[in-house]
Protein backbone atom coordinates (compact mmCIF):
# COMPACT_ATOMS: atom_id res chain seq x y z
CA UNK A 1 0.00 0.00 0.00
CA UNK A 2 1.32 3.44 -0.95
CA UNK A 3 1.28 5.88 1.97
CA UNK A 4 3.14 8.79 0.41
CA UNK A 5 2.76 9.76 -3.19
CA UNK A 6 4.47 12.83 -4.68
CA UNK A 7 3.71 13.85 -8.26
CA UNK A 8 5.57 16.63 -10.11
CA UNK A 9 6.17 18.45 -6.85
CA UNK A 10 7.58 21.92 -7.28
CA UNK A 11 8.32 24.23 -4.40
CA UNK A 12 9.42 27.82 -4.86
CA UNK A 13 10.34 30.38 -2.23
CA UNK A 14 10.15 34.11 -2.65
CA UNK A 15 13.09 35.86 -1.11
CA UNK A 16 13.85 38.79 -3.33
CA UNK A 17 14.14 36.46 -6.28
CA UNK A 18 12.30 33.20 -6.73
CA UNK A 19 14.23 30.20 -5.44
CA UNK A 20 13.17 26.83 -6.81
CA UNK A 21 13.87 24.39 -3.99
CA UNK A 22 12.19 21.40 -5.66
CA UNK A 23 12.03 21.13 -9.42
CA UNK A 24 9.41 18.51 -10.11
CA UNK A 25 9.88 15.52 -7.84
CA UNK A 26 8.08 12.19 -8.18
CA UNK A 27 8.20 9.26 -5.77
CA UNK A 28 6.08 6.80 -3.82
CA UNK A 29 6.65 5.31 -0.42
CA UNK A 30 5.05 2.05 0.66
CA UNK A 31 3.74 1.19 4.10
CA UNK A 32 6.48 -0.34 6.24
CA UNK A 33 9.27 1.01 4.08
CA UNK A 34 12.36 2.74 5.52
CA UNK A 35 13.39 5.41 3.04
CA UNK A 36 16.38 7.70 3.41
CA UNK A 37 16.58 10.97 1.53
CA UNK A 38 20.19 12.02 1.21
CA UNK A 39 21.80 15.01 -0.40
CA UNK A 40 24.04 17.98 0.27
CA UNK A 41 22.91 21.05 2.19
CA UNK A 42 20.48 23.19 0.24
CA UNK A 43 19.44 20.33 -1.99
CA UNK A 44 15.82 20.61 -0.82
CA UNK A 45 15.72 17.71 1.66
CA UNK A 46 14.03 19.63 4.45
CA UNK A 47 11.62 21.23 2.00
CA UNK A 48 10.62 17.78 0.82
CA UNK A 49 10.19 16.55 4.37
CA UNK A 50 8.01 19.56 5.23
CA UNK A 51 5.80 18.83 2.22
CA UNK A 52 5.44 15.15 3.07
CA UNK A 53 4.81 16.14 6.70
CA UNK A 54 1.98 18.45 5.60
CA UNK A 55 3.73 21.38 7.23
CA UNK A 56 3.86 23.16 3.91
CA UNK A 57 2.10 23.05 0.53
CA UNK A 58 3.78 22.60 -2.86
CA UNK A 59 3.81 25.46 -5.37
CA UNK A 60 2.61 22.96 -7.96
CA UNK A 61 2.15 19.22 -8.15
CA UNK A 62 0.46 17.05 -5.55
CA UNK A 63 1.47 15.33 -2.35
CA UNK A 64 -0.82 12.60 -1.08
CA UNK A 65 -0.31 11.20 2.38
CA UNK A 66 -2.42 8.21 3.42
CA UNK A 67 -4.65 8.94 0.46
CA UNK A 68 -5.31 12.55 1.46
CA UNK A 69 -4.60 15.23 -1.10
CA UNK A 70 -4.06 18.30 0.99
CA UNK A 71 -3.79 20.77 -1.85
CA UNK A 72 -7.07 22.58 -1.10
CA UNK A 73 -6.99 22.03 2.64
CA UNK A 74 -7.10 24.93 5.05
CA UNK A 75 -4.47 25.20 7.74
CA UNK A 76 -6.96 23.75 10.17
CA UNK A 77 -7.71 20.70 8.03
CA UNK A 78 -4.03 20.14 7.26
CA UNK A 79 -3.31 20.23 10.97
CA UNK A 80 -5.98 17.61 11.65
CA UNK A 81 -4.69 15.30 8.91
CA UNK A 82 -1.13 15.81 10.12
CA UNK A 83 -2.19 14.87 13.60
CA UNK A 84 -3.79 11.62 12.53
CA UNK A 85 -1.31 10.31 9.95
CA UNK A 86 2.14 11.86 10.48
CA UNK A 87 4.71 11.51 13.25
CA UNK A 88 7.82 13.72 13.57
CA UNK A 89 11.27 13.12 15.03
CA UNK A 90 13.65 16.09 14.92
CA UNK A 91 17.41 16.32 15.19
CA UNK A 92 17.19 18.51 18.33
CA UNK A 93 14.43 16.36 19.86
CA UNK A 94 12.32 19.46 20.65
CA UNK A 95 10.96 18.07 23.89
CA UNK A 96 9.07 20.56 26.05
CA UNK A 97 11.38 21.24 29.01
CA UNK A 98 8.56 21.89 31.50
CA UNK A 99 6.91 18.53 30.91
CA UNK A 100 8.03 15.08 32.07
CA UNK A 101 8.99 12.35 29.63
CA UNK A 102 5.51 10.86 29.96
CA UNK A 103 3.78 14.21 29.48
CA UNK A 104 5.98 14.96 26.48
CA UNK A 105 4.81 11.74 24.85
CA UNK A 106 1.17 12.58 25.64
CA UNK A 107 1.47 16.16 24.35
CA UNK A 108 -0.08 15.53 20.91
CA UNK A 109 -3.15 14.00 22.61
CA UNK A 110 -3.27 16.33 25.61
CA UNK A 111 -6.18 18.31 24.22
CA UNK A 112 -8.14 15.22 23.19
CA UNK A 113 -11.36 14.10 24.82
CA UNK A 114 -9.76 11.17 26.56
CA UNK A 115 -6.14 11.88 27.42
CA UNK A 116 -6.15 9.07 30.00
CA UNK A 117 -6.24 6.49 27.21
CA UNK A 118 -3.35 8.25 25.47
CA UNK A 119 -1.46 8.25 28.73
CA UNK A 120 -1.67 4.47 28.98
CA UNK A 121 -0.44 4.20 25.41
CA UNK A 122 2.39 6.60 26.25
CA UNK A 123 3.49 4.41 29.13
CA UNK A 124 3.53 1.37 26.80
CA UNK A 125 5.52 3.29 24.19
CA UNK A 126 8.09 4.51 26.70
CA UNK A 127 8.47 0.98 28.03
CA UNK A 128 8.94 -0.23 24.49
CA UNK A 129 11.81 2.23 23.85
CA UNK A 130 13.36 1.16 27.14
CA UNK A 131 12.43 4.20 29.23
CA UNK A 132 9.81 2.59 31.47
CA UNK A 133 11.78 3.76 34.50
CA UNK A 134 12.14 7.36 33.30
CA UNK A 135 8.47 8.34 33.01
CA UNK A 136 8.62 11.23 35.46
CA UNK A 137 12.02 12.55 34.44
CA UNK A 138 12.27 15.95 32.87
CA UNK A 139 14.16 16.35 29.58
CA UNK A 140 17.20 17.91 31.29
CA UNK A 141 17.49 14.73 33.37
CA UNK A 142 17.80 12.55 30.27
CA UNK A 143 20.74 11.83 27.96
CA UNK A 144 20.61 12.70 24.26
CA UNK A 145 19.74 9.14 23.25
CA UNK A 146 17.03 8.93 25.87
CA UNK A 147 15.57 12.23 24.72
CA UNK A 148 15.47 11.01 21.14
CA UNK A 149 13.72 7.84 22.26
CA UNK A 150 11.15 9.95 24.11
CA UNK A 151 10.72 11.89 20.87
CA UNK A 152 10.17 8.63 18.98
CA UNK A 153 7.57 7.55 21.52
CA UNK A 154 5.88 10.93 21.08
CA UNK A 155 5.86 10.55 17.30
CA UNK A 156 4.07 7.20 17.63
CA UNK A 157 1.41 8.25 20.15
CA UNK A 158 -1.09 9.09 17.41
CA UNK A 159 -0.45 5.78 15.58
CA UNK A 160 0.74 7.50 12.39
CA UNK A 161 1.03 5.99 8.91
CA UNK A 162 4.31 7.68 8.23
CA UNK A 163 7.14 8.74 10.52
CA UNK A 164 9.27 11.65 9.31
CA UNK A 165 12.69 12.15 10.82
CA UNK A 166 15.21 14.91 10.22
CA UNK A 167 18.81 13.85 10.99
CA UNK A 168 17.50 11.70 13.86
CA UNK A 169 21.00 10.61 14.90
CA UNK A 170 22.75 13.91 14.14
CA UNK A 171 23.33 14.73 17.79
CA UNK A 172 24.06 11.20 18.94
CA UNK A 173 27.14 9.02 19.09
CA UNK A 174 27.32 5.98 16.85
CA UNK A 175 26.17 3.46 19.45
CA UNK A 176 23.19 5.50 20.66
CA UNK A 177 22.35 6.32 17.08
CA UNK A 178 22.23 2.63 16.24
CA UNK A 179 19.77 2.04 19.04
CA UNK A 180 17.54 4.76 17.59
CA UNK A 181 17.84 3.27 14.11
CA UNK A 182 16.92 -0.14 15.50
CA UNK A 183 13.85 1.49 16.92
CA UNK A 184 12.89 2.76 13.47
CA UNK A 185 13.38 -0.73 12.15
CA UNK A 186 10.85 -2.03 14.65
CA UNK A 187 8.45 0.71 13.69
CA UNK A 188 8.58 -0.29 10.05
CA UNK A 189 7.84 -3.88 11.07
CA UNK A 190 4.47 -2.60 12.27
CA UNK A 191 3.67 -1.21 8.85
CA UNK A 192 4.62 2.39 9.49
CA UNK A 193 6.67 4.02 6.73
CA UNK A 194 9.78 5.82 7.99
CA UNK A 195 11.22 8.63 5.92
CA UNK A 196 14.48 10.08 7.12
CA UNK A 197 16.47 13.01 5.86
CA UNK A 198 20.19 12.62 6.48
CA UNK A 199 23.73 13.53 5.53
CA UNK A 200 24.95 10.41 7.16
CA UNK A 201 25.76 7.51 4.81
CA UNK A 202 25.63 5.19 7.81
CA UNK A 203 21.99 6.06 8.46
CA UNK A 204 21.29 5.65 4.75
CA UNK A 205 22.78 2.19 4.89
CA UNK A 206 20.01 1.16 7.30
CA UNK A 207 17.35 2.25 4.83
CA UNK A 208 15.46 -0.05 2.48
CA UNK A 209 15.81 2.55 -0.19
CA UNK A 210 17.79 5.76 -0.68
CA UNK A 211 16.58 8.79 -2.61
CA UNK A 212 19.35 11.14 -3.69
CA UNK A 213 18.29 14.72 -3.89
CA UNK A 214 20.58 17.10 -5.73
CA UNK A 215 19.63 20.69 -6.51
CA UNK A 216 15.96 19.98 -6.06
CA UNK A 217 15.88 16.95 -8.26
CA UNK A 218 15.92 13.26 -7.42
CA UNK A 219 19.01 11.64 -8.85
CA UNK A 220 19.70 8.09 -9.83
CA UNK A 221 18.78 5.30 -7.54
CA UNK A 222 21.46 3.99 -5.28
CA UNK A 223 19.81 0.98 -3.71
CA UNK A 224 20.89 -0.10 -0.29
CA UNK A 225 21.48 -3.66 0.72
CA UNK A 226 17.92 -4.88 0.94
CA UNK A 227 15.76 -2.71 -1.23
CA UNK A 228 12.13 -3.51 -0.75
CA UNK A 229 9.36 -2.73 -3.21
CA UNK A 230 9.68 -0.72 -6.38
CA UNK A 231 9.95 3.01 -5.86
CA UNK A 232 9.42 5.30 -8.78
CA UNK A 233 12.33 7.65 -9.34
CA UNK A 234 12.88 10.11 -12.07
Amino acid sequence: MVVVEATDVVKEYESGETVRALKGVNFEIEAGEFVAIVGPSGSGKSTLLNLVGLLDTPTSGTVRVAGEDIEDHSDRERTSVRKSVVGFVFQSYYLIPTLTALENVVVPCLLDRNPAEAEQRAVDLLERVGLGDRLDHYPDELSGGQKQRVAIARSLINEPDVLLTDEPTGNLDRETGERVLDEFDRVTDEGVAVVTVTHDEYVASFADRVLHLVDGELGTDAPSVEAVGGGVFE
Partner: protein
Amino acid sequence: MSLLRRLFPRTYMARRNLLRAKARSGLAVLTIIIGVVAIASLGSFGVAFQEAQTDAIGGFGNELLISPGEDNGQLLDERDRRDVERLASGKEVIPLLVAQWQLESTGETVTVRGVGNPKALYQIREGSIPDSWRSGAIVGSEFAEKHEIEPGQSIRLDGRTYRVQAVLEEEGQTSVANPNEAVVVPPGEIDVDGYNNLVVKTESPREASALADEIRANLNERKERVDVLDFSKFAEQFDQAFRQIRMFLLGVGGISLLVAGISIANVMLMSAIERREEIGVLRAVGYQRIDVLGIMLAEAMLLGIIGAIVGVALSLLATMGINSLMLDGPFDFRSATVMYMVLAFAFGIGASIVAGLYPAWKASSKRPVEALRG
Protein backbone atom coordinates in the same frame (compact mmCIF):
# COMPACT_ATOMS: atom_id res chain seq x y z
CA MET B 1 -2.96 12.34 36.05
CA SER B 2 -3.61 15.68 37.67
CA LEU B 3 -7.12 17.06 37.50
CA LEU B 4 -5.93 20.37 36.04
CA ARG B 5 -4.18 18.54 33.22
CA ARG B 6 -7.24 16.44 32.43
CA LEU B 7 -9.83 19.21 32.67
CA PHE B 8 -7.89 22.28 31.54
CA PRO B 9 -4.89 21.05 29.57
CA ARG B 10 -4.21 24.51 28.10
CA THR B 11 -4.19 26.08 31.54
CA TYR B 12 -1.95 23.24 32.74
CA MET B 13 0.58 23.95 30.00
CA ALA B 14 0.23 27.68 30.64
CA ARG B 15 0.98 27.24 34.31
CA ARG B 16 4.05 25.14 33.52
CA ASN B 17 5.26 27.79 31.12
CA LEU B 18 4.86 30.54 33.70
CA LEU B 19 6.66 28.55 36.36
CA ARG B 20 9.56 28.06 33.97
CA ALA B 21 10.50 31.73 34.28
CA LYS B 22 9.43 32.42 37.84
CA ALA B 23 11.20 35.74 38.25
CA ARG B 24 9.85 37.10 35.01
CA SER B 25 6.30 35.93 35.73
CA GLY B 26 6.60 37.31 39.26
CA LEU B 27 7.60 40.74 37.99
CA ALA B 28 4.73 40.74 35.50
CA VAL B 29 2.31 39.86 38.31
CA LEU B 30 3.82 42.66 40.39
CA THR B 31 3.03 45.25 37.74
CA ILE B 32 -0.58 44.06 37.66
CA ILE B 33 -0.75 44.19 41.45
CA ILE B 34 0.49 47.78 41.40
CA GLY B 35 -2.06 48.73 38.75
CA VAL B 36 -4.94 47.09 40.61
CA VAL B 37 -3.89 48.59 43.94
CA ALA B 38 -3.54 52.00 42.30
CA ILE B 39 -7.04 51.93 40.84
CA ALA B 40 -8.75 50.42 43.88
CA SER B 41 -6.92 52.43 46.54
CA LEU B 42 -7.01 55.75 44.74
CA GLY B 43 -10.71 55.18 44.00
CA SER B 44 -11.41 54.33 47.64
CA PHE B 45 -9.37 57.31 48.74
CA GLY B 46 -11.44 59.59 46.51
CA VAL B 47 -14.65 58.19 47.97
CA ALA B 48 -13.46 58.47 51.58
CA PHE B 49 -12.11 61.98 50.95
CA GLN B 50 -15.42 63.15 49.56
CA GLU B 51 -17.40 61.56 52.39
CA ALA B 52 -15.14 63.08 55.01
CA GLN B 53 -15.32 66.53 53.41
CA THR B 54 -19.08 66.30 52.99
CA ASP B 55 -19.42 65.44 56.67
CA ALA B 56 -17.31 68.45 57.60
CA ILE B 57 -19.06 70.94 55.37
CA GLY B 58 -22.57 69.62 55.89
CA GLY B 59 -25.25 68.36 53.59
CA PHE B 60 -26.24 71.86 52.69
CA GLY B 61 -27.57 71.45 49.22
CA ASN B 62 -31.00 70.23 50.31
CA GLU B 63 -32.10 73.33 52.23
CA LEU B 64 -33.51 76.68 51.19
CA LEU B 65 -33.19 79.78 53.34
CA ILE B 66 -35.86 82.36 52.63
CA SER B 67 -35.43 85.93 53.89
CA PRO B 68 -37.46 89.11 53.33
CA GLY B 69 -36.88 90.62 49.89
CA GLU B 70 -35.79 94.21 49.34
CA ASP B 71 -39.36 95.39 48.73
CA ASN B 72 -40.55 93.69 51.90
CA GLY B 73 -40.07 94.84 55.46
CA GLN B 74 -37.62 93.42 58.00
CA LEU B 75 -39.75 90.36 58.55
CA LEU B 76 -41.72 87.79 56.59
CA ASP B 77 -45.41 87.70 57.47
CA GLU B 78 -48.08 84.99 57.70
CA ARG B 79 -49.02 85.49 54.06
CA ASP B 80 -45.44 84.88 52.93
CA ARG B 81 -45.34 81.76 55.03
CA ARG B 82 -48.60 80.42 53.65
CA ASP B 83 -47.51 81.07 50.08
CA VAL B 84 -44.20 79.30 50.62
CA GLU B 85 -45.95 76.37 52.30
CA ARG B 86 -48.35 76.12 49.39
CA LEU B 87 -45.50 75.99 46.86
CA ALA B 88 -43.47 73.61 48.99
CA SER B 89 -46.48 71.27 48.97
CA GLY B 90 -45.92 68.98 51.90
CA LYS B 91 -42.26 69.70 52.48
CA GLU B 92 -41.38 70.95 55.89
CA VAL B 93 -41.26 74.74 56.19
CA ILE B 94 -39.61 75.80 59.43
CA PRO B 95 -40.09 79.41 60.57
CA LEU B 96 -37.05 80.97 62.20
CA LEU B 97 -36.81 83.96 64.50
CA VAL B 98 -33.52 85.61 65.36
CA ALA B 99 -32.56 87.92 68.18
CA GLN B 100 -29.35 89.14 69.81
CA TRP B 101 -29.48 88.77 73.58
CA GLN B 102 -26.99 89.40 76.30
CA LEU B 103 -25.60 86.49 78.26
CA GLU B 104 -25.53 87.76 81.81
CA SER B 105 -22.70 85.58 83.11
CA THR B 106 -20.15 87.08 80.70
CA GLY B 107 -21.89 90.10 79.30
CA GLU B 108 -21.38 89.04 75.70
CA THR B 109 -24.03 89.12 73.00
CA VAL B 110 -25.25 85.80 71.66
CA THR B 111 -27.44 84.88 68.73
CA VAL B 112 -30.74 83.42 69.84
CA ARG B 113 -32.93 81.52 67.40
CA GLY B 114 -36.61 80.91 67.91
CA VAL B 115 -37.55 77.57 66.40
CA GLY B 116 -40.87 75.79 66.93
CA ASN B 117 -39.68 72.31 66.06
CA PRO B 118 -35.90 72.17 66.54
CA LYS B 119 -35.80 68.44 65.87
CA ALA B 120 -36.67 69.16 62.24
CA LEU B 121 -33.63 71.37 61.85
CA TYR B 122 -31.01 70.12 64.26
CA GLN B 123 -29.56 66.90 65.68
CA ILE B 124 -29.58 66.66 69.47
CA ARG B 125 -26.44 65.32 71.08
CA GLU B 126 -27.28 65.35 74.76
CA GLY B 127 -30.51 65.69 76.69
CA SER B 128 -34.00 65.73 75.16
CA ILE B 129 -36.89 68.01 74.41
CA PRO B 130 -40.61 67.23 74.40
CA ASP B 131 -42.56 67.15 71.14
CA SER B 132 -44.48 70.28 72.05
CA TRP B 133 -41.72 72.54 73.13
CA ARG B 134 -42.77 75.55 75.17
CA SER B 135 -40.01 76.40 77.61
CA GLY B 136 -36.31 76.06 78.27
CA ALA B 137 -33.42 76.40 75.86
CA ILE B 138 -31.17 74.33 73.67
CA VAL B 139 -27.56 75.32 73.19
CA GLY B 140 -25.19 74.75 70.30
CA SER B 141 -22.17 72.54 70.75
CA GLU B 142 -19.56 75.27 70.70
CA PHE B 143 -21.60 77.44 73.03
CA ALA B 144 -21.90 74.53 75.44
CA GLU B 145 -18.18 73.87 75.34
CA LYS B 146 -17.21 77.50 75.71
CA HIS B 147 -19.43 78.08 78.71
CA GLU B 148 -19.19 74.54 80.08
CA ILE B 149 -22.90 73.99 80.04
CA GLU B 150 -24.66 70.65 80.34
CA PRO B 151 -28.34 69.78 80.13
CA GLY B 152 -30.05 70.59 83.44
CA GLN B 153 -28.09 73.76 84.11
CA SER B 154 -29.58 77.20 83.78
CA ILE B 155 -28.47 80.27 81.85
CA ARG B 156 -29.65 83.86 82.14
CA LEU B 157 -30.29 85.75 78.94
CA ASP B 158 -31.61 89.32 78.81
CA GLY B 159 -32.94 89.08 82.36
CA ARG B 160 -34.73 85.77 81.92
CA THR B 161 -33.63 82.36 83.21
CA TYR B 162 -33.68 79.36 80.89
CA ARG B 163 -33.15 75.76 81.87
CA VAL B 164 -30.90 74.08 79.29
CA GLN B 165 -32.67 70.95 78.10
CA ALA B 166 -30.35 69.74 75.37
CA VAL B 167 -27.04 70.30 73.58
CA LEU B 168 -26.91 70.07 69.78
CA GLU B 169 -24.56 68.06 67.58
CA GLU B 170 -21.91 70.03 65.83
CA GLU B 171 -23.27 71.04 62.44
CA GLY B 172 -21.34 71.61 59.24
CA GLN B 173 -20.17 75.15 58.53
CA THR B 174 -22.61 75.71 55.74
CA SER B 175 -25.65 74.45 57.59
CA VAL B 176 -28.56 76.86 57.25
CA ALA B 177 -29.11 78.76 60.52
CA ASN B 178 -25.90 77.40 61.95
CA PRO B 179 -26.56 76.70 65.62
CA ASN B 180 -23.05 75.89 66.86
CA GLU B 181 -22.53 79.11 68.79
CA ALA B 182 -26.20 79.96 69.24
CA VAL B 183 -28.97 79.36 71.74
CA VAL B 184 -32.30 78.01 70.54
CA VAL B 185 -35.50 78.93 72.35
CA PRO B 186 -39.21 78.36 71.63
CA PRO B 187 -40.49 81.01 69.17
CA GLY B 188 -42.90 82.49 71.69
CA GLU B 189 -39.94 83.74 73.71
CA ILE B 190 -38.89 86.17 71.01
CA ASP B 191 -41.23 89.06 70.73
CA VAL B 192 -41.50 89.87 67.02
CA ASP B 193 -44.45 90.04 64.69
CA GLY B 194 -43.44 87.78 61.82
CA TYR B 195 -40.47 85.61 60.89
CA ASN B 196 -36.85 86.44 60.16
CA ASN B 197 -36.42 83.40 57.93
CA LEU B 198 -38.18 80.35 56.59
CA VAL B 199 -36.17 77.18 56.09
CA VAL B 200 -37.47 74.59 53.58
CA LYS B 201 -36.05 71.08 53.65
CA THR B 202 -36.08 69.09 50.41
CA GLU B 203 -34.84 65.65 49.38
CA SER B 204 -32.07 66.67 46.98
CA PRO B 205 -30.15 69.70 45.70
CA ARG B 206 -32.01 69.37 42.41
CA GLU B 207 -35.36 69.58 44.17
CA ALA B 208 -34.15 72.50 46.24
CA SER B 209 -33.08 74.35 43.12
CA ALA B 210 -36.40 73.74 41.37
CA LEU B 211 -38.39 74.86 44.39
CA ALA B 212 -36.25 77.98 44.78
CA ASP B 213 -36.99 78.96 41.18
CA GLU B 214 -40.69 78.32 41.70
CA ILE B 215 -40.85 80.44 44.86
CA ARG B 216 -38.97 83.30 43.17
CA ALA B 217 -41.23 83.17 40.12
CA ASN B 218 -44.46 83.11 42.17
CA LEU B 219 -43.73 85.47 45.03
CA ASN B 220 -41.50 88.00 43.32
CA GLU B 221 -43.67 88.51 40.28
CA ARG B 222 -44.42 92.19 40.91
CA LYS B 223 -42.07 93.07 43.72
CA GLU B 224 -39.20 91.43 45.58
CA ARG B 225 -41.13 89.89 48.46
CA VAL B 226 -38.57 87.23 49.30
CA ASP B 227 -34.91 86.51 48.88
CA VAL B 228 -34.29 82.79 48.38
CA LEU B 229 -30.85 81.48 49.17
CA ASP B 230 -30.35 78.05 47.67
CA PHE B 231 -27.12 76.16 47.98
CA SER B 232 -27.83 73.68 45.26
CA LYS B 233 -25.50 75.41 42.78
CA PHE B 234 -22.69 75.19 45.30
CA ALA B 235 -23.58 71.62 46.05
CA GLU B 236 -23.39 70.76 42.37
CA GLN B 237 -20.05 72.51 41.95
CA PHE B 238 -18.83 70.75 45.04
CA ASP B 239 -19.91 67.37 43.67
CA GLN B 240 -18.36 68.16 40.34
CA ALA B 241 -15.06 69.11 41.95
CA PHE B 242 -14.99 65.79 43.76
CA ARG B 243 -15.88 63.93 40.61
CA GLN B 244 -12.93 65.59 38.91
CA ILE B 245 -10.62 64.68 41.76
CA ARG B 246 -11.82 61.09 41.53
CA MET B 247 -11.37 61.01 37.77
CA PHE B 248 -7.86 62.35 38.18
CA LEU B 249 -7.03 59.69 40.76
CA LEU B 250 -8.55 57.00 38.56
CA GLY B 251 -6.51 58.34 35.65
CA VAL B 252 -3.33 57.89 37.67
CA GLY B 253 -4.47 54.35 38.52
CA GLY B 254 -5.34 53.72 34.90
CA ILE B 255 -1.89 54.75 33.75
CA SER B 256 -0.26 52.29 36.12
CA LEU B 257 -2.52 49.56 34.83
CA LEU B 258 -1.62 50.53 31.28
CA VAL B 259 2.04 50.17 32.19
CA ALA B 260 1.20 46.78 33.69
CA GLY B 261 -0.47 45.75 30.44
CA ILE B 262 2.58 46.77 28.44
CA SER B 263 4.80 44.80 30.77
CA ILE B 264 2.61 41.72 30.35
CA ALA B 265 2.68 42.12 26.58
CA ASN B 266 6.45 42.38 26.75
CA VAL B 267 6.78 39.28 28.90
CA MET B 268 4.51 37.31 26.62
CA LEU B 269 6.32 38.44 23.47
CA MET B 270 9.68 37.43 24.94
CA SER B 271 8.26 34.12 25.96
CA ALA B 272 6.73 33.57 22.51
CA ILE B 273 10.09 34.27 20.86
CA GLU B 274 11.94 32.00 23.27
CA ARG B 275 9.50 29.18 22.70
CA ARG B 276 9.28 29.56 18.96
CA GLU B 277 10.58 26.07 18.26
CA GLU B 278 8.44 24.56 20.96
CA ILE B 279 5.36 26.21 19.49
CA GLY B 280 6.45 24.89 16.10
CA VAL B 281 6.58 21.36 17.51
CA LEU B 282 3.13 21.73 19.02
CA ARG B 283 1.81 22.88 15.66
CA ALA B 284 3.64 20.02 13.90
CA VAL B 285 2.16 17.37 16.18
CA GLY B 286 -1.36 18.59 15.53
CA TYR B 287 -2.11 21.60 17.74
CA GLN B 288 -4.36 24.01 15.94
CA ARG B 289 -3.66 27.74 15.90
CA ILE B 290 -6.52 28.28 18.31
CA ASP B 291 -4.92 25.79 20.73
CA VAL B 292 -1.66 27.72 20.80
CA LEU B 293 -3.63 30.95 21.13
CA GLY B 294 -5.56 29.40 24.01
CA ILE B 295 -2.39 28.37 25.86
CA MET B 296 -0.81 31.80 25.49
CA LEU B 297 -4.00 33.59 26.55
CA ALA B 298 -4.33 31.28 29.53
CA GLU B 299 -0.84 32.37 30.54
CA ALA B 300 -1.79 36.04 30.34
CA MET B 301 -5.02 35.34 32.20
CA LEU B 302 -3.24 33.46 34.99
CA LEU B 303 -0.88 36.40 35.46
CA GLY B 304 -3.87 38.73 35.53
CA ILE B 305 -5.91 36.63 37.97
CA ILE B 306 -3.06 36.24 40.44
CA GLY B 307 -2.21 39.94 40.16
CA ALA B 308 -5.83 40.99 40.56
CA ILE B 309 -6.46 38.77 43.60
CA VAL B 310 -3.33 39.91 45.41
CA GLY B 311 -3.95 43.49 44.30
CA VAL B 312 -7.51 43.56 45.63
CA ALA B 313 -6.39 41.96 48.91
CA LEU B 314 -3.75 44.66 49.36
CA SER B 315 -6.27 47.33 48.35
CA LEU B 316 -8.67 46.09 51.02
CA LEU B 317 -5.94 46.58 53.61
CA ALA B 318 -5.08 50.02 52.24
CA THR B 319 -8.76 51.00 52.20
CA MET B 320 -9.16 49.87 55.78
CA GLY B 321 -6.30 52.21 56.65
CA ILE B 322 -7.91 55.06 54.71
CA ASN B 323 -11.30 54.33 56.30
CA SER B 324 -9.95 54.43 59.81
CA LEU B 325 -8.17 57.71 59.09
CA MET B 326 -10.96 59.50 57.23
CA LEU B 327 -14.20 57.70 58.06
CA ASP B 328 -15.73 55.85 61.00
CA GLY B 329 -13.29 53.00 61.45
CA PRO B 330 -11.57 50.46 59.18
CA PHE B 331 -14.72 48.54 58.22
CA ASP B 332 -16.70 51.60 57.20
CA PHE B 333 -16.71 50.53 53.53
CA ARG B 334 -18.87 52.62 51.22
CA SER B 335 -20.66 51.05 48.27
CA ALA B 336 -18.62 53.16 45.85
CA THR B 337 -15.45 51.69 47.37
CA VAL B 338 -16.70 48.16 46.76
CA MET B 339 -17.46 49.21 43.19
CA TYR B 340 -13.88 50.40 42.73
CA MET B 341 -12.58 47.07 44.04
CA VAL B 342 -14.69 45.14 41.55
CA LEU B 343 -13.66 47.57 38.81
CA ALA B 344 -9.96 47.21 39.64
CA PHE B 345 -10.25 43.40 39.72
CA ALA B 346 -11.98 43.31 36.34
CA PHE B 347 -9.54 45.78 34.84
CA GLY B 348 -6.55 43.83 36.14
CA ILE B 349 -7.68 40.65 34.42
CA GLY B 350 -8.98 42.49 31.37
CA ALA B 351 -5.74 44.39 30.84
CA SER B 352 -3.75 41.14 31.03
CA ILE B 353 -5.92 39.42 28.47
CA VAL B 354 -5.83 42.38 26.11
CA ALA B 355 -2.06 42.59 26.54
CA GLY B 356 -1.74 38.86 25.84
CA LEU B 357 -3.80 38.96 22.66
CA TYR B 358 -1.14 40.28 20.31
CA PRO B 359 1.72 38.01 21.46
CA ALA B 360 -0.64 35.02 21.48
CA TRP B 361 -1.89 35.83 18.01
CA LYS B 362 1.66 36.34 16.78
CA ALA B 363 2.84 33.05 18.24
CA SER B 364 -0.11 31.10 16.92
CA SER B 365 -0.01 32.51 13.42
CA LYS B 366 3.60 31.49 12.79
CA ARG B 367 3.72 28.64 10.33
CA PRO B 368 5.16 25.52 11.93
CA VAL B 369 7.89 25.31 9.29
CA GLU B 370 9.12 28.80 10.13
CA ALA B 371 8.89 28.15 13.83
CA LEU B 372 10.98 24.99 13.47
CA ARG B 373 13.60 26.53 11.23
CA GLY B 374 15.26 27.88 14.37
